[in-house]
């Protein structure tokens, strides 16, 4: 082949590669980005229209860089005139601080300045709600514009200063380490049957505690005795849980129930144990828990005084097959209860950011956030990115706005946003929808029917003071109920060894039952059975991972003279590097990193050929190119090509195909060149 022909072909190849990248550009540009809060600072509470909100003091959330020191904090205080305090006892490591600016204009100016400061990761306005307990004047110094409250603010500042002085006197610094990491409850402890008297507890009139006669009876002396073939639990209300049948929970249970996976429930708390604040919910007796935290009241008992969080936790891991109440989807998973919403169901962004970081730092592998706001928070977004970087799958409710528009944090690109469907499989009346929805899950729909059987049934503690009956079984509806279905299935997937958040998201979406209308249903309705099957296939050893080492061994042991053993060894290493290199690369940068576009391209092979084009090196380059080409083909064939499938979807098909073709062409060309240089076995030709 003439040199000009080779040059022409190479130019055409490069042009084709460039063209194949064109469909990726619009997808890349449309990646959801929001600018950090252009929102107008707002004040709190008050005498409403009569109040000039701009004259009120404002609280600011400041997320310092993780390597910021106490000296940096002091310097920022000196430069800004702010008095920085930790948001909670757990903020010491993450440097999440709060400060009070004297008024709106000053707050806005300070936030803008802080966002430019390299020592600051994020800064946002924090606006708080009012609960008239006196202690809130300390925690929430922004309040009514009354002399009493302003006096309380001054008192709180003094109190905070005193506390800070005491901390310093006690030797506390900002380098304080987090408490010892959470240790999951011993999974070997068997389920225990409920106490007999619990069976006599009142139940809602709509539900029967008695298992239907046609249901197979399991005699489980030691609790959880579900087997691979008999996965129907004996919980009396299980038959009412239509949502479990919709997602194929029993199919998934043949393989896994989420053992050992920690799921953080960031919500109103969970009635996980009997404490001074209340009693353990009746169907959580054998649910595994790890240490959580109450960020609303700043104590270590995240008890649920609302009922929302316990219901959400129940969908994930309510005690199952214990002859009591209802079942949970990942009922061997461990719950980490984190309270960020008050008894009224409200919360503030600093606490949520704190809780996300707490979960990531204390071993949570999945986070469920059945909460939201129409406003993004930069501080929460930074925390979400932090958790995601640490390998946490973050699942969020899309919102209950009855219209298009996914709330935050669900709309952040790092989160898996879940819309809700009712028993018919149609989008629930109340569910928010939008392009950020990843998939839909059952969340109940009682809006039109008014029938509790169309809701999601779980055990929770719904206070009588708020219209509930205390500890009982309730049908709730909402994307809050849909989200924990997906979080639980994510836990099942993680338990199968697939832990990268982008891959977990990929499995959840590609295993969903297609429903059309992506804005409403995303990839479709959640399927636990399909997701676990896919995860098991991807997480386990693959045939190609066995075949390749065998070929390499054969290459080393068979044929050729001893004199060239070094070359054969290098070729074996190169083919292995070409084959496993991209997979190692993804482990380094993460499955959704843009760098994978290069890691899984022909570029490394081109570089190898350019660097090793002389002497025996061309053989090594050919082996590397071949290994890479086989990897690209195997990943493409299995639908496991990271980044492209997770981020670009079908737009990445031309890019993948072009790189695959280029890798094989390069491998062939390098082999041809080597054959010309070193000769071929008798009976073959190079051209």
């Amino acid at each position, binding site marked *: 082949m003439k040199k000009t022909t080779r040059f022409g072909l190479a130019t055409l190849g490069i042009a084709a590669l460039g063209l194949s990248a064109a469909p990726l550009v619009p997808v890349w540009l449309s990646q959801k980005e929001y600018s950090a*809060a252009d*929102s*107008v*600072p*707002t*004040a*709190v509470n*008050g*005498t*409403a*229209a*009569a*109040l000039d*909100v701009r004259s009120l003091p404002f609280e600011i959330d400041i997320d310092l860089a993780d390597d910021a020191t106490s000296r940096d904090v002091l310097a920022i205080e000196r430069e800004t005139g702010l008095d920085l305090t930790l948001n909670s006892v757990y903020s010491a490591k993450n440097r999440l601080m709060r400060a009070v600016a004297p008024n709106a204009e000053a707050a806005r100016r300070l936030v803008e300045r802080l966002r430019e400061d390299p020592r600051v990761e994020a800064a*946002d*306005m*924090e*606006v*708080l*709600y009012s609960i008239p307990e006196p202690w809130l004047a300390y925690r929430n110094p922004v309040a009514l514009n009354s002399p009493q409250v302003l006096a309380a603010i001054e008192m709180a500042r003094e109190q905070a200063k005193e506390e800070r002085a005491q901390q310093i006197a006690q030797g506390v610094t900002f380098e304080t380490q987090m408490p010892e990491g959470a240790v999951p409850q011993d999974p070997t402890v068997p389920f225990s049957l409920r106490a007999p008297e619990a069976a006599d507890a009142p139940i809602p009139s709509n539900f029967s505690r008695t298992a239907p006669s046609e249901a197979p009876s399991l005699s489980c002396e030691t609790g959880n005795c579900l087997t691979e073939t008999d996965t129907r639990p004996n919980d009396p209300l299980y038959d009412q849980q239509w949502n479990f049948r919709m997602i194929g929970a029993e199919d998934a249970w043949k393989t896994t129930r989420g053992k050992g996976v920690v799921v953080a429930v960031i*919500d109103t708390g969970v009635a996980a144990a009997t404490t001074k604040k209340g009693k353990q919910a009746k169907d959580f007796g054998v649910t595994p828990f790890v240490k959580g935290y109450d960020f609303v009241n700043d104590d270590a008992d995240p008890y649920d005084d*609302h*009922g*929302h969080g316990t219901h959400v936790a129940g969908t994930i891991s309510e005690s199952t097959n214990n002859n009591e109440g209802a079942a949970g989807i990942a009922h061997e998973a461990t719950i980490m209860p984190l309270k*960020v*919403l008050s008894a009224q*169901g*409200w*919360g*503030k*962004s600093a606490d*949520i950011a704190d809780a996300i970081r707490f979960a990531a730092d204390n071993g949570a592998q999945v986070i469920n956030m*059945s*909460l*939201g*706001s*129409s*406003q993004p928070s930069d501080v929460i977004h930074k925390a979400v990115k932090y958790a995601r970087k640490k390998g946490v799958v973050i699942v969020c*409710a899309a*919102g*209950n*706005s*009855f219209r298009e528009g996914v*709330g935050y944090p*669900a709309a952040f690109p790092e989160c898996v946003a879940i819309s809700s469907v009712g028993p018919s499989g149609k989008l629930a009346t*109340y569910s*928010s929808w939008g392009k950020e929805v990843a998939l839909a899950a059952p969340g109940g729909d009682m*809006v039109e029917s*008014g029938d509790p059987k169309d809701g999601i049934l779980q055990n929770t503690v*719904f206070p009588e003071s*708020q*219209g*509930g009956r205390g500890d009982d079984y*309730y049908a*709730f*509806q*909402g*994307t*809050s*109920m849909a989200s924990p279905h997906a979080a639980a299935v994510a836990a099942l997937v993680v338990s199968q060894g697939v832990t990268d958040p982008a891959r977990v998201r990929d499995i959840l979406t590609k295993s969903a039952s297609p429903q059309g209308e992506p804005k409403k249903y995303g990839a479709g309705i959640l399927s636990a059975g399909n997701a676990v099957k896919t995860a098991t296939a991807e997480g386990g050893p693959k045939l190609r991972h066995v075949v390749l080492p065998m070929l390499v061994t054969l290459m080393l042991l068979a044929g050729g003279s001893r004199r060239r053993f070094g070359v054969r060894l290098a070729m074996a290493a190169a083919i292995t590097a070409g084959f496993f290199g991209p997979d190692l690369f993804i482990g380094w940068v993460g499955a959704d990193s843009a760098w994978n576009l290069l890691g899984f391209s022909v570029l490394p092979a081109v570089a190898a050929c350019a660097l090793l084009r002389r002497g025996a090196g061309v053989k090594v380059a050919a082996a590397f190119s071949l290994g890479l080409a086989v990897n690209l083909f195997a990943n493409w064939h299995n639908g496991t090509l990271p980044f492209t499938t997770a981020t670009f979807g079908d737009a990445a098909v031309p890019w993948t195909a072009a790189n695959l073709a280029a890798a094989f062409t390069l491998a062939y060309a390098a082999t041809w060149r080597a054959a010309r240089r070193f000769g071929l076995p008798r009976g073959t030709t190079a051209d």
Partner: protein
Amino acid sequence: MPVNEEQKKKIDEWIKKAGRNEYGDPADTVYAGGNPLFDERKPGLKDRYEYILEKYPELRK
């Protein structure tokens, strides 16, 4: 007590002036489920203006 048009206008103006969210709460308030009008524990939906007036009765004046 039903909310009249004048009250609705007044509430909307207050929201705009005070930089509140559509529910009259501070802009970055986060809600269980994402919507304070929809109590996931109960059927039905509260009226947005009623919700605001419950929290800020002085706006009725």
